[in-house]
């Protein structure tokens, strides 16, 4: 169990929703640069199903798509989710939102990370079945990669400074 997780979400056949999938692919090729404390996972999951991936992690960065409608497609948004009060609504006809899932984990005494950050690209099209992303979203890939690299550098520093790496074996 590596303490730092970059969790890329999405759907590789749904236009811009493939963003997380592409980011995970690019990160996979530079794994040695990210350090041995970092794990990269691509998952086409939501809510409840993410809990077992988050369990026992120290810090998590979720890479995903979002449509806020208030920004140009390709804009990167950063949400430090650790600061959010869990939404009490359910997202899916069959899933619950991540904040609700985390609140649930807390109730169930499942150990989840204190810090979950979200990096989401403003998507243009997440409804058309296609293996191609739209141009502005595709153009945002390098920025996302740079951001993830920065996030892992800070994460690695924090882990080494709080001695978490030494305690890792006991907690994993």
């Amino acid at each position, binding site marked *: 169990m590596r303490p730092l997780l970059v969790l890329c*979400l*999405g*759907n*590789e*056949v*749904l236009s811009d*929703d493939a963003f997380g999938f592409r980011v995970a692919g690019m990160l996979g090729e530079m794994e040695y640069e990210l350090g041995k404390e970092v794990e990269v996972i691509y998952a*086409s*999951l*939501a809510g*409840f*199903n993410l*809990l*077992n991936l988050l369990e026992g992690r120290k810090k998590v960065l*979720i890479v*995903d*798509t*979002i*449509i806020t409608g208030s920004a140009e497609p390709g804009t990167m948004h950063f*949400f430090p*989710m650790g600061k*959010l009060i869990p*939404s*009490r*609504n*359910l*997202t*899916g*006809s*069959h*899933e*619950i*939102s*991540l*904040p*609700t899932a985390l*609140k*649930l984990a807390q*109730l*169930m005494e*499942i150990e989840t990370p204190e810090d979950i950050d*979200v990096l*989401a690209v403003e998507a243009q099209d*997440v*409804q*058309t*079945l*296609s293996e191609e992303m739209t141009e502005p979203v595709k153009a945002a890939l390098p920025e996302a990669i740079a951001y993830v690299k920065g996030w892992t550098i800070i994460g690695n520093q924090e882990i080494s400074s709080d001695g978490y790496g030494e305690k890792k074996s006991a907690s994993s």
Partner: protein
Amino acid sequence: MKQILIDPITRLEGHGKIHLFVNDDGSLANAYFQVPELRGFEKFCVGRPVEEMCRITTRICGVCPDAHHMAAAKAADAVYGVTIPSAARKLRELMYNAFYAGDHTTHFYALGGPDFVCGPDAPPAERNILGVIAKVGIDAGKKVIAQRARGQRVIEIIGGKKVHPVTSLPGGMSKRITKEEQQEMIKIGEEMVEFAKFTIKVLNDVVLANKAYVDLILSDTFAHKTYNMGLVDANKKVNFYDGMVRVTGPDGSEHAKYAPKDYLSYVAEHVEPYSYLKYPFLKKVGWKGFVDGKDSGVYKASPLSRLNVSDGMTTPQAQAEYERFYETLTGDRSGKTPVHATLATHWARVVELVFACEATLMQAKDEEITSDHILDPPTGIVGEGVGIVEAPRGTLTHHYKTDNNGIITEANLIVGTTNNNAAISMSIKKAAEGLIKKGQEITDGILNRIEMAFRAYDPCFGCATHSLPGQMPMELIVHDAEGGDIIQTRRRN
């Protein structure tokens, strides 16, 4: 025209719109539910090998990938004209029942349950799984989490991956099961059956012991006397994976029983000019609009429908629950008299949950599932195939045509929720009637009533978008029935 948008609706995936058309006197002229559909699916399939569909279709719907995996596998078997080995069929069916055991659990506790456990008038902020756990206890919450994990583990063992199985292919299965894996699944099955018993107790204590809830379930507000559709086995018992499609009328008499390949002789799709949604109906009865009764081709396909078209369940505890269900709601434990109360769908789902858990245990014990003979590779090609399974939300149809190399030339899908489009619109209309008054603000209370009407169907938008941190928007739009102008829109967070 008057148009109200509800935005967003809780516990729904993707984003949809509810349109209400209101006459000048304030009465409701029409109501319909509009969901976004994945555009371009047929085009996306064309030119791909049919065996790829088992994997790709798990991506078109983030809600029930396992159902698509199965329907696609069965359609691909038919395209190649292969009958899969008995062990392969047993593995698929076991995996599918385990999927149901997890899926129905989620719905009962996280999605449908809150209306009952927390109460239909509880504020939305309290009507969710956290509210359920506050009421039934942390221990119940832990049981639910564990039950979901069990279903996923069986899918992982047989399907090769959690959530998105990959092992079904034309002619059978690609992965054998070891004796150790079988033992693990037997243990999981035993735990599932215990969980099913626990769920029956929750249903009894929290829902059925409360007369107000039983009255609500049986109230006319939430009833529609339509046809019902579902798969049945050779003895007319409920089967999720395979069988004949049986359709019964509002009085319970048989309208049709047909093999999946003949579906186009029985089902047609009606199109309304104001919506891109299609409304499937029974061809031999005809489309008579959004109305109940024997002369209207509207049908429902849901857990309640499956119970209504069947003569019972093939496992003991589920059969006992089936009898209790009909005894309580119709006074006839045989199930010959159909139940039309939409909200009874939640109870029907629990009966099916019990069956799925018992069936998982029973099938896990079958010695044949560790057989090496799990694949008979295709040797010829038919070039066309239909696969039908029961998805949790209703009858799911995959229909492919291919060239002689198995490359898709045409695809058609009727997904679970689509079957219920007309019935959902009717339920919304019925719930909204008398609540929507001209010039009056739409309140949260009204929205809750309308939401409850369609939440019973557990509608799913085949839409795998993630939304953070809240949800995708849902809008309620009130139109003026004369000119179509928007009078009011409602958005809610």
